[in-house]
């Protein structure tokens, strides 16, 4: 049995039937990583001994079989696992090994998932390519000369390369959806507040959400169903009752209305991405959805708003990395010199750029013109979505305006890198659920992703549409 190609659902069922074991599944993942990850660099830490010990425990204990019993999972390296090195792709954390577990990790393990290791990402999740990792980039399994997307690139690679059937990433402005699109897998950003952020190293707290990667929509829905729900350790989490993500997954799209903001597609979209997107819309229409135009007037400002708001929040959140309580320290004669020395040596160029941008947007004399203005336009962006959702049940866009670009291509032009997020930041700013599902390949065999965005807390409809699309011919990639 080729354990690597099984979905999480099928792997769990095979273990249930006694055809394989958790230990065999974990060993298969570890062997694949040992053989192939030197080239792809999905993982920063492989926790082989811990994973095998857990798998054996699952195989021998007579405990209840969890919903992810024996399923290997990869975690982005900004998620805390007690005692496991956690870097967030940065040097400033040194050999930090957190003394606690993220809630999402605890919930995965409680359902029998086995943590294989920690995956590469842009430093503190700031980037769209993994090239801003302090430990070198990951590579796209479809073409190793190209980036896998980011910031959760290592988790996308782990699933695309069939190292693990599922992985977790974090999505602030597209960091799960964009790498999922560029690596040809499914990736979702839950409604803001559905998944606890406890134990996720904070980047921009009003935007950050942990989200699943998988090779099927059903697996992604299962993972989100396992990790979401109220958590007393995150006061922004679980403020609203919502249907499970898997609840409507087999229903199809008959009668659903899907909106397309055509005006956002007029410039900057690669021709092959456009063509794949149009084929996806036709496939949805052929499956019974009605596709119609919607206006998201203020979304043309989404990138500008995002890079002011997210960097402002980051400049505050990352103040904690000062060389006092954890991680690396560069000694100085004074406390101020210790702070500046530690932060200057510990952070890479992109983090410094964003911290300075955010500091500037919040500073006296510029606050009103940048930060406050951006938060007002954010309100308008959210209202546009609310108005559109009076007429449609979901909104479709390409996930990324281009397929995967080559390593180094955008590294010297931060603004070009930021434009990779042009279609993903809008739903983030509005707190809405969104998924990227594969929608074909370019002539050069690079994956393209379709993004479906839904109403707040209606993640179930987003998964429903993605699953229906996956069942059409246009939805088959891997």
């Amino acid at each position, binding site marked *: 049995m080729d354990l690597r190609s099984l979905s999480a659902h099928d792997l769990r069922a095979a273990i249930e039937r006694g055809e394989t074991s958790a230990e065999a599944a974990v060993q298969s993942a570890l062997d694949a990583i040992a053989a192939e990850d030197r080239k792809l660099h999905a993982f920063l830490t492989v926790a082989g001994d811990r994973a095998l010990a857990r798998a054996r425990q699952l195989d021998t204990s007579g405990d209840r079989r969890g919903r992810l019993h024996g399923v290997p999972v990869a975690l982005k390296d900004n998620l805390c696992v007690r005692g496991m090195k956690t870097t967030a792709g940065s040097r400033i954390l040194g050999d930090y090994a957190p003394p*606690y577990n993220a809630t999402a990790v605890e919930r995965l393990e409680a359902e029998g998932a086995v943590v294989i290791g920690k995956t590469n990402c842009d430093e503190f999740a700031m980037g769209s390519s993994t090239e801003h990792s302090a430990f070198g980039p990951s590579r796209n399994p479809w073409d190793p000369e190209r980036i896998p997307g980011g910031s959760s690139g290592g988790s996308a690679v782990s699933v695309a390369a069939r190292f693990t059937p599922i992985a977790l990433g974090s999505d602030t402005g597209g960091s799960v959806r964009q790498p999922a699109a560029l690596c040809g897998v499914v990736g979702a950003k839950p409604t803001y507040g559905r998944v606890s952020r406890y134990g996720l190293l904070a980047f921009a707290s009003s935007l950050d959400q942990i989200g699943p990667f998988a090779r099927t929509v059903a697996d992604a829905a299962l993972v989100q169903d396992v990790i979401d729900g109220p958590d007393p350790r995150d006061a922004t989490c679980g403020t609203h009752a919502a249907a499970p993500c898997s609840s409507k997954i087999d229903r199809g799209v008959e009668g659903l209305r899907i909106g397309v903001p055509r005006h956002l597609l007029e410039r900057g979209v690669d021709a092959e991405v456009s063509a794949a997107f149009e084929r996806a819309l036709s496939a949805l229409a052929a499956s019974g959805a009605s596709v119609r135009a919607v206006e998201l007037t203020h979304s043309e400002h989404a990138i500008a708003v995002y890079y002011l708001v997210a960097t402002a929040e980051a400049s505050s959140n990352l103040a904690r990395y000062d060389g006092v309580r954890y991680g690396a320290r560069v000694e100085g004669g004074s406390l101020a010199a210790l702070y500046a020395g530690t932060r200057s040596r510990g952070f890479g160029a992109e983090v410094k750029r964003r911290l300075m941008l955010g500091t*500037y947007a919040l500073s006296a004399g510029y606050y009103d013109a940048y930060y406050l203005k951006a938060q007002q336009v954010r*309100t308008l962006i959210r209202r546009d979505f609310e108005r559109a959702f009076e007429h449609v049940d979901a909104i479709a866009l390409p996930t990324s305006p281009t397929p995967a670009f080559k390593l180094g291509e955008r590294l010297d032009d931060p603004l070009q890198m930021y434009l990779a997020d042009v279609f993903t930041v809008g739903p983030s700013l509005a707190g809405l659920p969104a998924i990227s599902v594969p929608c074909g390949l370019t002539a050069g065999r690079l994956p393209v992703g379709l993004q479906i965005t839904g109403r707040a807390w209606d993640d179930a409809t987003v998964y429903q549409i993605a699953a229906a699309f996956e069942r059409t011919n246009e939805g088959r990639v891997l």
Partner: protein
Amino acid sequence: MGSQLTRADVERIAELARLAIEPGDAPRFAEQLSSILDYATSVQRVDTTNVPPHAGVAVSPLRADSPVDPLDRHAVLEQAPDANVDAGLFRVPKVL
């Protein structure tokens, strides 16, 4: 609004952000930050009369204010670059 940052601006912002920028890096940061700010000034063209700033997508629920076990103090201090674990203290250079 013009948003061309000078080297002096970058040095001032870096100081506010508790970063020490190498003198050789300041011109490149000034150029890149100016280009991003130029792009971001598009928000200033939007009419936001009577539009409230975004204030969170969710209403935070309150939890009961009851004592729970905090993180283990030893485990936390063991992650510090310099600490007196037995005394329960982080160590930093003299401040006063």
